[in-house]
């Protein structure tokens, strides 16, 4: 009770600075909250898309005979999981490739002849059969081997997934950078606010020392003040993050037609982490101020 009384009255006296410290702490935690939520949502989208891609491609060795190719095709066709098989010749592959990179003339110029392999495009009755079919195909010698990995060239169509994942990691990197920048600033501001609080009470601190107060007894109210500022910052961060969730993420959920892209469990975990980091910022700030300004 004693400590609570001491810290709240001191905060009232340094209103503006306390406010600034809380706001910047809040800002860094808002960014953290929003970024984590976006990254989490994008990862969710990626997983989801991955599950919905029901197509795999296999590439063939260049030197196989037509009979070998047809044998493989009928082998695939006989599988109950397969919906359709399409043969793509080397020429078709090149046409497709050129279409995909039509705006990158440089790459096209590099190509001499036709280095692209022929292959099959296999669609499943359900994406969950991807693995089973791929595993079965792994035993076939007609399929070419990737010289880099030594594995058979059986590819899932993951370009969309990869694009989403790239977005997620870019947002994560940029977001993390700003979280750190504002986090450091928040620590500095809390530290300044606490320093002012110490300064305005230096006479009282002197008297406390005189009557034999231990350093920790003197420090506690200031420590609590910093922690409290961090905590309020965290609350602001959580509120804005939740607004962001309800304003944007739910719309994304509707758009990609996935319910619970960001689960309430994740929201709870995120809130907990924000509070934890807020308190960490607050205590780091006050510890910084106390280390230098309260000496015996």
């Amino acid at each position, binding site marked *: 009770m004693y400590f609570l009384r001491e810290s709240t009255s001191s905060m009232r006296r340094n209103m503006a600075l306390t406010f600034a410290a809380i706001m910047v702490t809040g800002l860094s935690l808002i960014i953290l909250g929003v970024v984590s939520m976006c990254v989490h949502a994008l990862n969710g989208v990626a997983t989801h898309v991955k599950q919905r891609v029901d197509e795999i491609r296999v590439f063939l060795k260049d030197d196989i005979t037509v009979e070998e190719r047809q044998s493989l095709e009928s082998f695939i066709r006989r599988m109950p999981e397969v919906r359709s098989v399409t043969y793509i010749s080397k020429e078709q592959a090149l046409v497709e490739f050129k279409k995909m990179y039509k705006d990158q003339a440089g790459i096209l110029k590099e190509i001499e002849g036709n280095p692209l392999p022929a292959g099959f495009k296999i669609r499943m009755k359900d994406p969950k059969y991807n693995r089973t079919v791929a595993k079965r195909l792994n035993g076939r010698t007609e399929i070419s081997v990737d010289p880099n990995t030594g594995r058979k060239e059986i590819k899932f169509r993951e370009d969309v997934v990869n694009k989403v994942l790239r977005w997620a990691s870019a947002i994560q990197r940029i977001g993390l950078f700003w979280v750190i920048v504002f986090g450091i600033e928040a620590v500095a501001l809390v530290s300044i606010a606490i320093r002012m609080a110490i300064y305005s009470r230096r006479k009282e601190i002197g008297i406390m020392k*005189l009557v034999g107060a231990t350093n920790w*007894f003197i420090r506690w109210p200031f420590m609590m003040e910093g922690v409290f500022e961090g905590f309020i910052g965290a609350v602001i961060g959580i509120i804005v993050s939740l607004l962001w969730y309800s304003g944007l993420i739910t719309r994304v959920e509707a758009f990609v037609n996935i319910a619970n892209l960001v689960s309430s469990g994740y929201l709870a975990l995120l809130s907990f982490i924000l509070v934890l980091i807020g308190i960490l910022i607050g205590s780091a700030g006050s510890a910084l101020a106390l280390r230098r300004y309260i000496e015996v």
Partner: protein
Amino acid sequence: MIKFRRVTKVYQGNIYALDDVTVDIAKQEFVFLVGPTGSGKSTFIKLMLKEEEPTSGQVYIADTNLADIKRWKIPYLRRKVGCVFQDFKLLPQKTVYENVSYALEVTGKPRRIIETYVPEVLKLVGLSHKLDAYPDELSGGEQQRVSIARAFVNRPPILLADEPTGNLDPSMSVTIVKLLERINATGTTVIMATHDQEIVNMFKKRVVELREGRIIRDQARGVYGHGG
């Protein structure tokens, strides 16, 4: 109780605040530490509170060499050494009662003890009727009595008073020193730094006189002396 052994304190710029001071103060003694401003009285007191470290020599309180007390234990030393100053050092936003109870709160005493001790000690200094007054509503003498109550509420074995009558008129000064005398009678060792000649002459206590950091006189039942 208190021993100074060849204590020298040199401040920056080769200023000798204390120069080879050796003195013993027994339990329950009342000592006037006299001398003009700058004679080393304040340094003498600061060394006993471990606010300053001696440049050479040792200071003992109750057979403990203060140099052996670790930093974090200094607060516990200060609970044993009550302190009163010329400028009272009261907290203006706290009442008389709170200013005194504060000293106990700070040392983590339970509320029950605080509620018994504080009225008791305020009664001793004669301020039972002003518990809820604020320091700026009190006269200088009353403020000094609050500060003595605060120093004494922990029942420290030693009470240091640095020019406690410096801001007070002569009759109030006498009241304050009489109060210190009563505290001394309860078994507390009292050391009072002063350059108040009349007070020293009136009370006839042991007098330790400092000049330029050296003890030039140590006399039982002494008077202030000539140079003044």
